[in-house]
């Protein structure tokens, strides 16, 4: 009777040890399918952004016949409602219950920062299709985080340089009061050499900019720089033009404030606005032409930069699946394949820096009426060639 309780756990232990040995001796098995968790903002004022990421991502899967890197692909789509709490819970579910191989899709940096920790802890690779917070580029950089978009500061740095190059001396800055808003104005000021006459941080849900416009009228800058994504920018620009300020000052923005979603809502008043982006729908390369044509055909509208980022994120995952021959459990090999980034990006040249953020070109675009009478962006030229972010020096990812 005394021996019985001992014998049973012992047998169990032996079994476990045997299983462990088998587990150790078997090389990572090739998966027969890829599962991707696409967690994005699909409701509320930021929904347009998330929808474009989703559509761009799914277009890439569709064009490859439902496969990425040769394996059948399942995309689990979920809504983070632009809320860090909801995002974190949903990410937990995707990682633990659905056991996705990759995560992607988040629009807003505050949601990204909340989702990062549990995702990285489960050794799931996160491929960002938009948010690129400075934290993950610098001290908190992570082997499991890859940005297929940009680092938050980059686009604003490009505008800062453009505004300086065009000879503007007095600039007023407006951004929402949240982490990416501060990254934005920091980035702008890093490359702008003139005088900043006013700097406003507005609430993230502000829709009536009457007060800000009167302040602009009083401050008399010669240029205004806004980082107001989605509906915020739509309103600001309409009201800015309505108040007659567009005659006295030139409006600049990052690509977010001057892309198809904003153009569609604002219309004519957008004409002549300068903005910067790492991508444009008229970039002259084969991958981009294929993407833009297919996107227009599939969804009946021009893609935004968000859609392009979603498409590239899917392609990057596809390249990693292909190059590891589907052995997705071999994390070191997957990481190596992702770092190599062997895919035809819609933005032309694309490579990763040591902090897993892209080193890429940034372009200046202007909003015009094209030959078909559509109001849209035209690329004017390159602002930065092979531009890296400012935080890479603080990143200490152990070598693979």
């Amino acid at each position, binding site marked *: 009777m005394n021996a019985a309780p001992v014998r049973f756990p012992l047998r169990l232990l032996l079994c476990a040890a045997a299983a462990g040995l088998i587990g150790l001796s078997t090389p990572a098995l090739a998966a027969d399918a890829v599962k991707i968790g696409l967690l994005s903002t*699909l*409701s*509320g*004022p930021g*929904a*347009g952004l998330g*929808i474009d990421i989703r559509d761009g991502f799914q277009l890439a899967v569709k064009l490859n016949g439902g496969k990425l890197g040769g394996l059948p692909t399942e995309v689990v789509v979920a809504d983070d409602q632009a809320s860090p709490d909801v995002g974190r819970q949903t990410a937990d579910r995707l990682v633990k219950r659905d056991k996705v191989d990759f995560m992607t899709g988040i629009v807003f940096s505050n949601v990204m920062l909340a989702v990062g920790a549990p995702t990285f802890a489960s050794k799931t690779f996160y491929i960002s299709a938009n948010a690129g917070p400075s934290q993950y580029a610098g001290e908190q950089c992570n082997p499991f985080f890859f940005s297929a978009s940009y680092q938050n500061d980059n686009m604003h740095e490009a505008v800062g340089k453009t505004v300086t190059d065009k000879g503007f001396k007095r600039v007023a800055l407006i951004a929402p*009061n949240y982490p990416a808003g*501060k990254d934005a104005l920091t980035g702008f000021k890093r490359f702008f050499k003139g005088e900043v006459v*006013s*700097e*406003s*941080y*507005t*609430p993230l*849900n*502000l*829709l*009536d900019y*009457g*007060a800000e416009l*009167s*302040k602009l*009228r*009083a401050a008399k800058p010669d240029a205004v720089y806004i980082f107001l994504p*989605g*509906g915020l920018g*739509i*309103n600001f620009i*309409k*009201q800015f*033009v*309505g*108040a*007659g300020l567009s005659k006295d000052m030139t409006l600049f923005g990052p690509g977010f404030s001057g892309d198809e*979603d904003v153009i*569609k*809502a*604002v*219309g*004519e*008043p957008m004409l002549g606005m300068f903005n910067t982006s790492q991508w444009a729908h008229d970039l002259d390369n084969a991958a981009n032409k294929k993407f833009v044509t297919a996107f227009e055909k599939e969804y009946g509208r021009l893609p935004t930069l968000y859609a392009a980022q979603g498409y590239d994120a899917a392609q990057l995952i596809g390249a990693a699946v292909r190059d590891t021959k589907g052995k997705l459990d071999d994390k070191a090999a997957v990481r190596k394949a992702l770092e190599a980034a062997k895919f035809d990006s819609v933005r032309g040249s694309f490579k990763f820096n040591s902090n897993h953020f892209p080193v890429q070109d940034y372009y200046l675009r202007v909003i015009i009426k094209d030959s078909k009478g559509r109001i849209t962006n035209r690329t004017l030229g390159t602002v930065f060639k092979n531009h890296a972010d400012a935080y890479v020096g603080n990143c200490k990812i152990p070598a693979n």
Partner: protein
Amino acid sequence: MTGILILEQALNGLQFGLMLFLLAAGLTLVFGIMDMINLAHGSLYMVGAYLVAAATAASGSFWVGLGAGIVGAALFGVLLELSVLRRLYARDHLSQVLGTFAILLMCNEAVRFIWGSQPVLLSPPESLAGPVELLPGFYYPAYRLLIIGVGLAVALGLWALITRTRIGMQVRAGASNREMALAMGVPVRALFTALFGLGAALCAVAGGMLGPLLAVQVGMGESILILAFVVIVIGGIGSVRGALLGALLVGVVDTAGRTLIPMVFESLFGPEVAGNAGPAVASILIYVLMAAVLFFKPQGLFPSHG
């Protein structure tokens, strides 16, 4: 320069206050007369704005769109009253809150289902898209002036309707003493339905007028609904005159607070602190105003109940 800044802010405050009044007028009548808390009032505003946007897109004219949207929203309001809300009058406030909150959620999803979750384009008429020179060197958006004009006209019309017509008399009677009005033979059911339609039409006017200025999007009704409730609490529940005064007070205080407080903070502490603390303090201001009014006049400025 500061003179122009203050003048511009005063006009902005007036414009915002008048639009708030359009929402608050309907809300205060429904609340005051039917004793019904209607959280779906913001949805009528949203549905109205969407209908105006859709009709504008279909007809190509903002004015036709506005007219069609107002009629459509009034019909929607009447339909809502006849089908659902009528059954909630006799229930307690908790049931009403839950019921109308459900309607709010359903409206949001229905709008998302029909129009998608991206904001819908609604532009002001071409001729009003630019600025007008009011004083030498002072330009003001023509469209905001139009909003002020429409707001004043509607306020005047409502005043005439309520003080100069038989229906208005019945409404006032209902607001000050519902049971007595019932006993005196006021056709309550028809009156409630008509009132609800009127409230919905006013919402559509506000939604349609503000659409080009703000954004026609899902959830646009919720934030403004809270302000409308503040307005009717300040003004006195059931009183249209109170709603007008409350709305103008809230509009001016909100606008002035949002400009002046961040400016003061910025000169004292710098832009980061102003960005963090300014809007917070400014938005508290309205509630401070509400608390102050309730402290001195617990029934609001113009109580209509006896």
